[in-house]
């Protein structure tokens, strides 16, 4: 099964009048890291819970390598819930052994893997402590170890980076990349840390209000959305500077959208007339900007902005 792919095919979920998911489809290819982004309440957690089988979709299907996903397959998924889930009064190593064993490892293998992962995640010295005695960051590392200890064939992580310090973020990113690249384990994780998603992920899925807004590789999305955006930074000009030319529309300070007829050279000339041109060129939005433009300024981008 390693190297399998995950397909989510038009799943919908309602809670009474509230639409949590509507016809959401996405695909995760083997050996790919997929970032799952969207404002809070957009259905990311619901979708992940449906994939791991904690919730049932009202309609739609989740497939693993073409087959409808069943519980033996789900057992092979490493899952990290958003609220986390560990026994607070249990020893770290006992806890990981237990997770290993209930996923089918024998005792000796479970202990060995536990030690390996604790070592790899930098919390080996806390193996004998109760989980509740650990800092939140370290608990999170243990939580990740719990999803990795049984060598899953896929990883689904709900906000794995939230609350981690920069070193924790580096360790976790390293582990995810390694697991994905060396073992071909597909990873899907949700995050509000868009720079991180941009850096780590092969592809991105953006959802809003339970619907898919955009998906694809970051470059693809950038290309699709950077269509005819130009940057013209003029020294000394106010942020609201607008050349006022036909077919050239002010978007953000010094960012302009040119329609098909407009000539970038006209924009450059106007800029040179207005002052000293510091920067000029085609504008490539980052994921953060993409996110804002696809979700719309009203669509709960506040949380997304907060994460950094």
């Amino acid at each position, binding site marked *: 099964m390693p190297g399998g792919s995950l397909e989510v095919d038009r799943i919908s979920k309602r809670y009474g009048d509230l639409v949590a998911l509507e016809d959401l489809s996405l695909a995760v290819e083997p050996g790919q890291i997929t970032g799952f982004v969207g404002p809070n309440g957009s259905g990311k957690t619901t979708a992940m819970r449906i994939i*791991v*089988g*904690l*919730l049932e979709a009202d309609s739609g299907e989740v497939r693993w390598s073409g087959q409808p996903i069943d519980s033996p397959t*789900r*057992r092979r*998924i490493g*899952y990290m*819930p958003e*609220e*986390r*889930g*560990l*026994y*607070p*009064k*249990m*020893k770290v190593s*006992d806890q990981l052994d*237990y*997770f290993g*064993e*209930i*996923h*089918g490892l024998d005792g000796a293998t479970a202990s060995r893997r536990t030690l390996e992962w604790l070592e790899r995640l930098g919390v080996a010295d806390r193996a004998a402590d109760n989980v509740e005695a650990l800092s939140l960051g370290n608990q999170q590392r243990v939580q990740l170890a*719990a*999803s990795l200890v049984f060598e899953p064939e896929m990883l689904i992580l709900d906000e794995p980076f939230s609350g981690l310090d920069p070193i924790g973020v580096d360790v976790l990113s390293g582990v995810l990349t390694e697991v994905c690249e060396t073992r071909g384990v597909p990873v899907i994780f949700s995050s509000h840390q868009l720079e991180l998603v941009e850096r780590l992920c092969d592809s991105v899925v953006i959802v809003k209000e339970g619907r898919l807004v955009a998906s694809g590789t970051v470059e693809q999305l950038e290309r699709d959305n950077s269509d005819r955006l130009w940057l013209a930074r003029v020294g000394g000009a106010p942020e609201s500077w607008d050349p006022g030319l036909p077919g050239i529309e002010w978007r953000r300070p010094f960012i302009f959208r040119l329609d098909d007829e407009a000539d970038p050279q006209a924009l450059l000339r106007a800029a040179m007339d207005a002052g000293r041109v510091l920067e000029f060129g085609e504008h490539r939005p980052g994921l953060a900007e993409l996110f804002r433009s696809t979700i719309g300024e009203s669509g709960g981008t506040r949380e997304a902005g907060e994460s950094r």
Partner: protein
Amino acid sequence: MNGRRASYLAARREVRERLRSRAFLISTLVQVLAVAAIAIAVSVVGGTGPTEVKVGAIGPAGETITAQAQVPADRLDLDLLIENFATEQAARAAIEAGDIEIAVGTGPVLAGSGASEPAQAVLGQVAAEQKLRSGLDQAGLPPARTAELLDSSRVGFEQVRTSEDDGGQGIAFLSTILLYLALIFAGYAVASGVVEEKSTRVVELIIKAMKPRDLLAGKVIGIGLMGLVQLLLVVAAGLGTTLLLGGVDLPPATLDTALLALLYFVLGFALYGCAFAVAGSIVSRQEDSQSSTAPVMILLVGSYIIATSIASQPSSTLAVIGTLLPPVAPFAVPARAASGELPLEQLLLSVVLMIAASAMLIWLAGRVYERAVLRTGAPIRFRELLRLLRSP
């Protein structure tokens, strides 16, 4: 993973966590010490330990008599402390001085005022027998024949149970309290364990790997097993202390009661443990578990109260009803057995009814648990619970 392996792993986790838990070890120790203390108190205060009687033996005849009096004195819980005197005069002076209570020799039995009456009777009896022996000797009877005659004149003793309490009622109350404590501790542990798994969301990771029923079974079995071990230790501490001190004769039905208490802990826990599991599974936070376990607690406490009155009237109609009523039976049956008032056919019927009720509750608990365990948010109301039960 097959269900049995999953349940085994879940049960083993419960056992290990209890062995690591200071709270569990302390509560076990406290109960063991408390029961041992009760046993010591009963032996010291209520027990009829041997009474020491200082006896003077006058001359060789006195020595013979006092030596022969040891066996019957033992039966009356008398411990004869013998002091030898050469003459009756010396013995009389010792009695007057209060050094000894009674003296025997060839003459009359000398007894100080307030001397132990059973000791006087025993010594008088043995002295008389001794006189008879020497009389028969003098009549020319061979010593062997004399001994034979004297032996045949002795009568045995047999204890006949009276309707008066023989200590069985004390055992009945004790067994009721111990079972109550054991069931409430273990039951509450199940409920709070289920809620802990839900509130920490760890259940979401476990349910991905095993069926809810297997997790539930493992949890109830693991906690029940440790409850049983705890009860076993407590019972052993009580019996052991009593036997070690040797002060009290345990009521005849004590061992039966202990064995039945262990059996009924198992049966009762299948019932109450499952009920507590259901109560835990319908809430998501520890704060809510107080109210959701309340009905089970009320049933448990109510049954216990009924059982205490059964313990004092072990042959009443109420006692028979309690024996056959599964929630009450775990307390009522050992209590009645302690008083020796439990007909075998009622016991057997009770066991059958317990097993039937437990089986039903295990089924019910499995159904509710697997539907409720992944639910979060507000507690599930009764009506919703019924709807959950009917859903496929």
